[in-house]
């Protein structure tokens, strides 16, 4: 049975595309058949995060308009043969696709994939409506900041109004050193405010920048963020995995590092 998940946030720049790339790649690592759809028409980015920007021939708008068959537009991942990307169009805008067309496309894809993951654009306009139209469940990405959480709350309200069956939360870019000082809201604070199920927390990790530079999602590697994303994938498939300890290791290393800096 296939599941359609939209990754959304309201606010831009909180890590939707990074999350989509890592969750998609992680699920493929767990031997699921996965397709990632970039619904951010006009501001295409998932292809570069996945490192597949040079392989694009057709895109989402071509498929929807019937200029090509679905299979022609799908790009196979570099590393995982069971992972595909349907890129967005760069030279068009959000009105090129309608929610009905998205629903139809997703219904066709359901037959071939275990997971269909939609990377939603920022905002609550047409692009958002297109992205959520065919989704079974949503993953809301936020950071522990007032503006991002406010937007996430608005998105949760809109998703509830659209009767999505399930909503889960990822708290991204946590800095445990700041949380310990009391200068950043904790995971519990964010969950308390938004009152939806937490599916994972991802630390602010410089390895994310490095992996994006290289166009290879870091899910599953030894970095804290890599482990956090893989845990999220397990939880998506229904496995129960305890929350990763983001604090302790990090803190010892920080303390050591600061000791050396002083000398």
């Amino acid at each position, binding site marked *: 049975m296939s599941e359609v998940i939209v990754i959304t946030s309201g606010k831009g720049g909180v890590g939707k595309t990074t999350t989509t790339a890592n969750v998609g790649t992680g699920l493929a690592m767990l031997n699921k058949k996965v397709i990632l759809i970039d619904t951010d028409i006009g501001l295409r980015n998932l292809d570069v995060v996945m490192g597949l920007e040079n392989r694009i021939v057709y895109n989402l708008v071509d498929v929807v308009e019937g200029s090509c068959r679905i299979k022609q537009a799908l790009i196979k991942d570099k590393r995982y043969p069971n992972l595909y990307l349907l890129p967005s169009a760069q030279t068009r805008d959000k009105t090129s696709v309608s929610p009905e067309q998205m629903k139809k496309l997703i219904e066709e894809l359901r037959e071939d994939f275990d997971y269909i993951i939609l990377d939603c654009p920022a905002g609550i306009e047409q692009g958002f409506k297109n992205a959520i139209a065919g989704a079974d469940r949503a993953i809301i990405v936020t950071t522990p900041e*007032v503006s991002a959480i*406010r937007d996430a*709350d608005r998105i949760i309200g809109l998703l509830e109004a659209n009767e999505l069956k399930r909503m889960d939360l990822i708290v991204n870019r946590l800095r445990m050193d700041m*949380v310990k000082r*009391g200068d950043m809201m904790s995971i519990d604070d964010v969950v308390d405010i938004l009152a939806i199920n937490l599916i994972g927390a991802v630390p602010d990790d410089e390895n994310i920048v490095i992996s994006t530079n290289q166009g290879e999602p870091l899910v599953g590697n030894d970095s804290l963020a890599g482990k956090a994303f893989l845990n999220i994938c397990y939880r998506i498939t229904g496995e129960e995995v305890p929350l990763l300890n983001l604090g302790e290791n990090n803190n010892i290393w920080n303390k050591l590092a600061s000791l050396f800096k002083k000398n």
Partner: protein
Amino acid sequence: MSIMDFFKRKSSGDVAKDRLKLLLISDRANCTPQIMELIKNDIIQVISKYMEIDAEGLDIQITQTESEGRNGSVPALYANIPIKDLKHSKVN
């Protein structure tokens, strides 16, 4: 800044949380502080017809309350109105 100020100072994380809680209440209720002020003034006018109340001490806010509605929780308008004196109702 005195030492006491230092200990009393709220961490910025707590400030953020408190600000957000207030912000989301008005976002969710689609209710601006201006509208809340108008509601407050109207309540004072209406209640004052029947009893003497402490307008300064009056506090209204929108909070969450348990209900059988969606997700078991709905917004509620909560008003705390201190009564100074119960006027005797006039017999006409």
